[in-house]
């Protein structure tokens, strides 16, 4: 114990200095926030003016998927990137043998999972005029997935990698596809043609919500599925490499 206390004492000098620095920095930034005049207009006016042309009624959804849809396109990529990174790092640590699932837990999952899917669908649909949208709906879907993972359902272990990958890529790929087809139709990336914006946004949101849900579930699973990388003694994979060596 005394050793630990000693070490902490020795570190204190540096920590105190740092604490002082951080406090100074925060105070400085705080005073500057106080000096900034309050009357900057922001972009609320611009959004309100163009709201009618965006195809949705909720201003946040309009900004996310129409006015600044390009940001959201890249953001969906960031989510997918996290999954690729996690899969490249580790295998999912599924338990070696499946323990018995208590019927109560099973029943709760059976009841909750469809309910959560319903709530997610509602949130996505509601996103066009109230609070909600792809990410909130996707998060609920992800929560349903996490619930199933926690219950350790035996069939989760055997999910093949390809359908999972298709599900993960579905949203981003559809987003890019819609963006490109808009480019060909109207000459602008993500410039939705007249009158179709509402439907296209709903389509993108639905696909992205599915992908976001799967993404969050895979992030929670903490690694790639068992059969994600082809076996090294797979004949079709090994032959070309064998020739060269």
């Amino acid at each position: 114990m005394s050793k630990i206390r000693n070490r902490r004492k020795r570190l204190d000098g540096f920590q105190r200095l740092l604490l002082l620095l951080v406090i100074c920095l925060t105070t400085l930034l705080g005073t500057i926030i106080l000096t900034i005049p309050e009357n900057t207009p922001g972009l609320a006016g611009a959004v309100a003016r163009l709201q009618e042309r965006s195809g949705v009624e909720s201003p946040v959804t309009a900004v996310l998927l129409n006015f600044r849809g390009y940001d959201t396109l890249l953001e969906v990529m960031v989510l997918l990137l996290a999954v690729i990174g996690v899969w490249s790092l580790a295998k999912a640590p599924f338990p070696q043998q499946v323990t018995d699932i208590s019927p109560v837990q099973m029943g709760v999952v059976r009841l909750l999972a469809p309910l959560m899917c319903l709530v997610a669908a509602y949130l996505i649909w509601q996103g066009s005029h109230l609070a909600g949208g792809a990410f909130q709906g996707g998060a609920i879907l992800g929560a349903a997935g996490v619930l199933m993972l926690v219950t350790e359902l035996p069939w989760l272990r055997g999910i093949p990698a390809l359908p999972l990958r298709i599900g993960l890529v579905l949203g981003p790929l559809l987003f890019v596809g819609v963006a490109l087809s808009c480019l060909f139709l109207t000459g602008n990336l993500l410039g939705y043609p007249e009158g179709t914006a509402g439907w296209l946004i709903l389509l993108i949101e639905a696909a992205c919500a599915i992908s976001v849900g799967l993404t969050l579930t895979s992030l929670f699973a903490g690694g790639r599925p068992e059969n994600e990388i082809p076996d090294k003694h797979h004949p079709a994979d090994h032959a070309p490499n064998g020739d060269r060596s």
Partner: protein
Amino acid sequence: MTYSILTLFDILLVLTLLWLGRRLLGTEDIFKAVVLFISFGLLMALAWVRMRAPDVALAEAALGAGLTGPLFLSALSRMNRTRKGERRLDSDENRGKEHEQDQEQAQTT
């Protein structure tokens, strides 16, 4: 009148948030810190509602508290598992001996 009540609520919320933040960053026990972080996220959702940002509140409640918390917990249990595994391997005399025997066999062959 409503103005002052709302301001009182604001001050209360802000103080709670700051206190939670200080606690969760300062406690020795990481598990406790994660639990505090989840409650911090839920209170944050309240703050977003107060700031008239329901979209952000929904996202924070679902993503910030609802998913980040379990992510932390699963990572914590994974870390503890490996640490325990190491300790078991370390202290378990028999297993260590087995390993050594295996290695010796490998060396002789």
